[in-house]
C-alpha cells in the first residue's frame, strides 16, 4: 500500500500562505501506525468527546482536519500574523462578497445558507437566541482559559458547528430515529439533503447511526427484526435495480457528448426522441406478447403464403406481407385451445392489448405533461422572473466544448441586451400607416397559409381518392404491387405527403419572417402552430378518407383493415427514408458545400422545432397503425433507433447550435402538449373504428361482427347467462347508462369549478403574502437602520480597512446565528463592539451593491 502523495504538498499550496499551523495539513507524512489503521469515515472518538465535554485538549494526530466544514462554518484559530489577517479578509470577502453587503442584516437567520439544506433550514431558525448566547459565552470562557492554544482549531468548531446541530436535531426527532426501515430511509434523505461537505455528512451519519444502534439495543422484538430484515432485503433489491438501471440507461455517453457540444437545447430533441422510443417499448411488448405470440403458437391451418417476395414489398408493405402477422387481417377470430382448460380468446386479447396500451400511454403522457406544465407555467407564473431566469440559469453547466461555450457567451449576451432593450423601450407607437400595413401583411400571410393548408389537404385527398380506386381495383383482381409501376402508384401518396411535410415548413418560416413579430419567441410559436396544424390536417384528411371511403362496405376490398395497415406502413416507411434523405441533403451536403465553395454560408443550424414535430408526426402514425398492424411498433422503434444515431452523427459533424437561446423546459412542455393532442387524434380514430365501423367479413379477429366492440358485448352476454357472473353485466349496464354518465360529468364539472375557485383564492392569498413580506422587509430595514445608528461609533467605522484587519473571525454563513463574532483575545463586550465595527466597515466596503467584483 505504498501510495505517494508528494506531488501535492507544494504545488497545491504554492499560492496559499495560511497553512502554517496545521490548518490544511500541508504535508502528508506516513501516518503513525496507530493512526493509519483508522478507517476513514469512522468518526474519531475525539469529536464525540469534545462535543460532549468540550475540554478541547486532544491528542490524536488526525483530528486536525477531521471535523471542519469550511464551507459553512468558520474557523477561529488564534491567528495573529499578517498572513492570517489577509486570509480572513479574503475569506470574509468570499463569504459575504458579491453584493451581499456585510451589515447586520447579513447576520439575520433568514440570510444564512451555510451548511443547511432547506429541509434543515428550520434548525437555524428554531434555535432560540438565549441558547446561542449560552453556547457562545461558554465558548468564550473556555477560550480565555487557554489563550495561547494554537493547534487544531477544528476541535473548537465542533462545539458550534452546524453539523452537530443537525445531528442533534435528527437524533431529537423521534420520527427519524424510529427503528424502522422507513425511518432509516428518511434519515438518509435528511443526510443527503444537507448542503454541506462530505465529512460533515459522514459525521452526522455516523453519529446518528451510532445513536440509533444504541436505541435499537433497548427494544428488540422478533417481529420487528423480521420486518426489518425483509425491508432491508427489499431495499437491497431496489438498490441493485438502481445499479442495473445505470448500466441500461440508454445512450448516456451520446447524450453527454451532445450536451457538451450544443447545450440543453439540442439535447432536448434527443431526449424527446429517447422518450418516444421508450414509450414504444410497452406498445411493442403488449402487442407482440398478447397478439402475435398467441397467433404464432396457434399455428393456423397450413395456408401457404403463395405470393412471391421480390424485395419491393419492403417498401410497399403489400404482396408477400399481406398474409403475415404484420397485418390485422391475418389474425384469427377463434378462441385458441391448446390444452383443455386453457383458452385464449383472440378477439378480447386484441381489444385488451390495444386498449391497455392506449390507457397506459394516456396516463404517462398526461402525467408528464401536467407535471411539466405545472413546473414551467403555473408555478413560474407566480413569479415574474425573466431576468433572474436569464441571469442565473443561462449558463449551461453541461457544456464541454470551446465552440459551444463561445456561442453560449454570445447568446447570453445578446439575450440580455435584447431583454434590457425591451424593458426600457417604451411601447413604440406605430403610426397609423405602419400599423395598417402590418395588419394587412398579417392578414395576407394568414390567408396565404390557409390557402397552402387547404391546397395540400386537397392534394392529399385527390391523390388518395384517384389512385386508390385504381389500386383497389388492382388488389381485388389480385394484381397489385407486382411491378414497379404498381409500387410507385402505391407510394405516390406517402411521397406526396412527405414532400409537403418537408417543404411547407420552410414556406411557413418565410411567412413568419415577413410578418415581423415583435419577439422571436412569437415567431417560433406561430411557426410551430402552423407546422403542426398542417400535419394534423393531413392526418385527419387521411383518416376521414380511410374510415369513410375504404372501411366497412364502402369499398369492395376483401380486408379493409389490412389495406389501412399497409397504407400506414407505407407512410411510416417513406417518412423514414425521406427524413434520412433530407437529413443527409440539408445537413451533410450543405455542410460539404459550405466547406468547398461558399465559406460564408456557415454550417446549417439544427432546427429543433421542425425536427421534434417530425418525430411527433411519426409517432402519431405509429399510434394509428398499431391497431391495424400489430407489428408496426417494432418498425417505429427501429426507425427511432436508427434516427438517433443518424441525427447524432449528423449533428456533431454538420450542424451548429442555434445562436438563439432555446428555452428547453418550456419548449418541452409545448411539445408534450402537441404530442398529447396527436395522441387524442389517434385515439379518436381508433376508437371510432372499434365502436362504429363494421369489420371486414372475411378476415381478422372480428370477422362477422357488427363492430369490434361487439366481442365484448358477446362476452358479457355469456357471463350474464352464468349465475355467478351475471352481476358483471348489470354493473356494466349501470355504468353505461345515461344517468351514470350525466352523474360523472356533473361531478367532473363540480371538481373543475372547485379547483378553479381554489386556485383563484390562492392567487389572492399569494398577493397578500407578497405585500406582507414587502412590508416586513421595510420594517426590518427601518429597525436595522435604527440599530446601526444607535451602535457606538468606533474608529473602525471611520477607517474600514483597519477594522477587518484585527484578528477577527468572520461570522458563519452557516446555521450558527452568532450575531457577534467573538474575538478570542478580547473581552466579550469588546468583541461585540468589534463586530459592529466590522459590520459597518464591511457595509461600506460593499456599499456598491450593484457592482459586485468582476472576476471574469
Amino acid at each position, binding site marked *: 500500500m505504498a*501510495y*505517494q*502523495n*508528494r506531488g*501535492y504538498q507544494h504545488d*497545491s*499550496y504554492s499560492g496559499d500562505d495560511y497553512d502554517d499551523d496545521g*490548518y*490544511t495539513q500541508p504535508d*502528508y507524512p506516513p501516518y503513525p501506525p496507530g493512526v493509519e489503521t483508522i*478507517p*476513514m469515515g469512522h468518526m474519531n472518538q475525539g469529536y464525540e468527546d469534545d462535543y460532549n465535554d468540550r475540554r478541547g485538549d486532544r491528542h490524536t494526530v488526525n483530528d486536525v482536519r477531521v471535523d471542519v466544514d469550511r*464551507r459553512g462554518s468558520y474557523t477561529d484559530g488564534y491567528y495573529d500574523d499578517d498572513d492570517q489577517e489577509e486570509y480572513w479578509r479574503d475569506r470574509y470577502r*468570499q463569504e459575504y*462578497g*458579491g*453584493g451581499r453587503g456585510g451589515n447586520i*442584516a447579513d447576520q439575520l437567520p*433568514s*440570510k444564512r445558507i451555510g451548511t443547511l439544506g*432547506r429541509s434543515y433550514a428550520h434548525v437555524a431558525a428554531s434555535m432560540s437566541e438565549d441558547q446561542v448566547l449560552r453556547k457562545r459565552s461558554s465558548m468564550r470562557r473556555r477560550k480565555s482559559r487557554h489563550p495561547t492554544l494554537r493547534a487544531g482549531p477544528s476541535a473548537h468548531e465542533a462545539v458550534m458547528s452546524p453539523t452537530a446541530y443537525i445531528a442533534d436535531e435528527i437524533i431529537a426527532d423521534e420520527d427519524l430515529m424510529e427503528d424502522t426501515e422507513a425511518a432509516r430511509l428518511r434519515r*438518509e434523505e435528511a443526510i443527503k*439533503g444537507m448542503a454541506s461537505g*462530505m465529512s460533515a*455528512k*459522514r459525521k452526522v*451519519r455516523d453519529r446518528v447511526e451510532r445513536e440509533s444502534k444504541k436505541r435499537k439495543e433497548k427494544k428488540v422484538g422478533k417481529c420487528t427484526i423480521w420486518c426489518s430484515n425483509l425491508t432491508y432485503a427489499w431495499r437491497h433489491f431496489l438498490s441493485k435495480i438502481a445499479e442495473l438501471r*445505470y448500466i441500461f440507461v440508454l445512450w*448516456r455517453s451520446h*447524450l453527454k457528448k451532445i*450536451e457538451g457540444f450544443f447545450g*440543453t437545447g439540442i439535447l432536448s430533441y434527443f431526449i424527446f426522441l429517447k422518450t418516444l422510443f421508450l414509450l414504444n417499448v410497452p406498445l411493442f411488448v403488449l402487442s407482440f406478447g398478447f397478439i402475435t405470440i398467441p397467433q404464432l403458437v396457434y399455428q393456423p391451418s397450413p395456408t401457404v403464403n403463395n405470393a412471391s417476395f421480390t424485395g419491393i414489398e419492403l417498401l410497399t408493405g403489400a404482396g408477400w406481407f399481406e398474409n403475415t402477422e404484420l397485418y390485422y387481417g391475418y389474425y384469427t377470430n377463434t378462441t385458441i385451445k391448446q390444452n383443455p382448460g386453457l383458452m385464449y380468446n383472440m378477439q378480447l386479447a386484441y381489444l385488451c392489448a390495444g386498449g391497455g396500451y392506449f390507457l397506459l400511454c394516456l396516463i404517462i403522457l398526461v402525467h408528464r405533461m401536467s407535471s411539466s406544465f405545472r413546473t414551467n407555467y403555473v408555478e413560474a407564473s407566480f*413569479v415574474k*422572473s*425573466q*431576468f*433572474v*431566469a436569464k*441571469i*442565473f*440559469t*443561462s*449558463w449551461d*453547466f*453541461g*457544456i*464541454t466544448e470551446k465552440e459551444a461555450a463561445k456561442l453560449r*457567451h454570445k447568446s447570453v*449576451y445578446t439575450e440580455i441586451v435584447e431583454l*434590457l432593450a425591451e424593458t426600457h423601450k417604451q411601447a413604440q407607437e406605430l403610426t397609423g400607416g405602419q400599423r395598417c400595413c402590418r395588419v394587412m401583411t398579417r392578414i395576407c400571410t394568414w390567408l396565404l397559409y390557409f390557402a397552402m393548408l387547404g391546397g395540400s389537404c386537397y392534394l392529399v385527398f385527390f391523390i388518395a381518392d384517384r389512385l386508390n380506386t385504381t389500386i383497389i381495383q388492382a388488389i381485388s383482381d389480385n394484381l397489385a404491387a407486382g411491378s414497379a409501376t404498381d409500387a410507385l402508384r402505391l407510394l405516390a401518396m406517402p411521397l406526396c405527403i412527405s414532400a409537403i411535410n418537408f417543404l411547407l415548413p420552410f414556406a411557413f418560416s418565410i411567412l413568419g419572417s415577413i410578418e415581423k413579430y415583435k419577439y422571436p419567441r412569437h415567431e417560433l410559436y406561430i411557426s410551430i402552430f402552423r407546422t403542426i396544424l398542417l400535419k394534423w390536417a393531413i392526418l385527419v384528411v387521411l383518416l376521414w378518407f380511410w374510415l369513410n371511403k375504404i372501411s366497412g362496405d364502402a369499398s369492395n376490398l376483401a380486408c379493409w383493415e389490412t389495406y389501412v395497415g399497409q397504407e400506414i406502413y407505407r407512410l411510416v416507411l417513406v417518412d423514414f427514408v425521406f427524413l434520412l434523405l433530407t437529413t443527409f441533403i440539408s445537413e451533410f451536403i450543405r455542410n460539404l458545400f459550405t466547406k468547398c465553395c461558399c465559406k460564408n454560408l456557415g454550417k446549417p443550424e439544427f432546427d429543433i422545432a421542425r425536427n421534434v414535430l417530425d418525430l411527433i408526426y411519426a409517432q402519431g402514425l405509429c399510434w394509428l397503425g398499431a391497431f391495424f398492424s400489430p407489428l408496426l411498433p417494432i418498425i417505429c422503434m427501429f426507425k427511432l433507433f436508427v434516427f438517433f444515431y443518424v441525427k447524432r452523427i449528423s449533428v456533431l459533424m454538420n450542424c451548429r447550435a442555434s445562436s438563439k437561446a432555446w*428555452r*428547453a*423546459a418550456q419548449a418541452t412542455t409545448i411539445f408534450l402538449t402537441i404530442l398529447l393532442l396527436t395522441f387524442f387524434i389517434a385515439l379518436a380514430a381508433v376508437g371510432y373504428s372499434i365502436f362504429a365501423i363494421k369489420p371486414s367479413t372475411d378476415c381478422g379477429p372480428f370477422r362477422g361482427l357488427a363492430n369490434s366492440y361487439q366481442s365484448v358485448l358477446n362476452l358479457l352476454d355469456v357471463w350474464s347467462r352464468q349465475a355467478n357472473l351475471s352481476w358483471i353485466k348489470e354493473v356494466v349496464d349501470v355504468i353505461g347508462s345515461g344517468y351514470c354518465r350525466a352523474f360523472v360529468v356533473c361531478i367532473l364539472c363540480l371538481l373543475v369549478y372547485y379547483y378553479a375557485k381554489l386556485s383563484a383564492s390562492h392567487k389572492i392569498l399569494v398577493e397578500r403574502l407578497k405585500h406582507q413580506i*414587502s412590508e416586513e*422587509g*421595510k420594517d426590518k*430595514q427601518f429597525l436595522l437602520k435604527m440599530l446601526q445608528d444607535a451602535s457606538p461609533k468606533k474608529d473602525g467605522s471611520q477607517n474600514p480597512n483597519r477594522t477587518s484587519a484585527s484578528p477577527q473571525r468572520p461570522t458563519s454563513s452557516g446555521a450558527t446565528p452568532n450575531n457577534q463574532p467573538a474575538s478570542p483575545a478580547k473581552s466579550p463586550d469588546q468583541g461585540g463592539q468589534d463586530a459592529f465595527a466590522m459590520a459597518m466597515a464591511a457595509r461600506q466596503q460593499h456599499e456598491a*451593491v450593484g*457592482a459586485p*467584483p468582476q472576476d471574469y
Partner: protein
Amino acid sequence: MGNKQAAFTESQLEQYQDCTFFTRKEILRIFRRYRDLDSDHIPKSYTRGEASRIKVPFEYIEKMPELKENPFRRRICEVFSEDGSGNMTFDDFLDMFSVFSEQAPQDIKAVYAFKIYGETVHPIKVNCCVFHQILEEADLDDDSQLSYMEFEHVISRAPDFLNTFHIRI
C-alpha cells in the same frame, strides 16, 4: 479498476451511498474519473482515509472536460473544496458531482447555486440596469439585497434551472 484491488472498503461505499445521490457503480465511475485527473499521484486504493487527505490541485481539476469551459469553475471548486482553496479531495469531488447530478433535489442545488453565483459574476458584465431588474423581480422584502430565501424562491421557479444546473458524468 481493471485489477482486483478494491478502491474502497464495503463500509466506505455504503457511507458514500448514504451521503450522496449515487449508486455504487456511479461512485466507482467517479473515482475512476478522479484518478484520471492525475493517475501518477493518486493511489489506487482509498481504503485508509486518503479520501479526505489527498488533494488534487485546482489546476488539474479545471482541466476536466466537464469544467474546463465553465466560467465559474474556479468558484465551483472553491465552494466544494473543504478549505475553500479549490483543491479537492475525493470527498469534495464526489460531493460536487452529487450536487450536480440529476437526482439531487432542487433545494440543495439552489443552495449551491447561491454560493456559486453569490461570489462570481456572470460572464457578461452585470451592469446596473440588469441588477436593478433582478432586484425588482426577486427582492421580496425590498431591502436591496438578495437573501438565500429570495434567491431560492425565484430560482426554484425558473424552469430551466434544473436543466442547466446539471453535469452529466
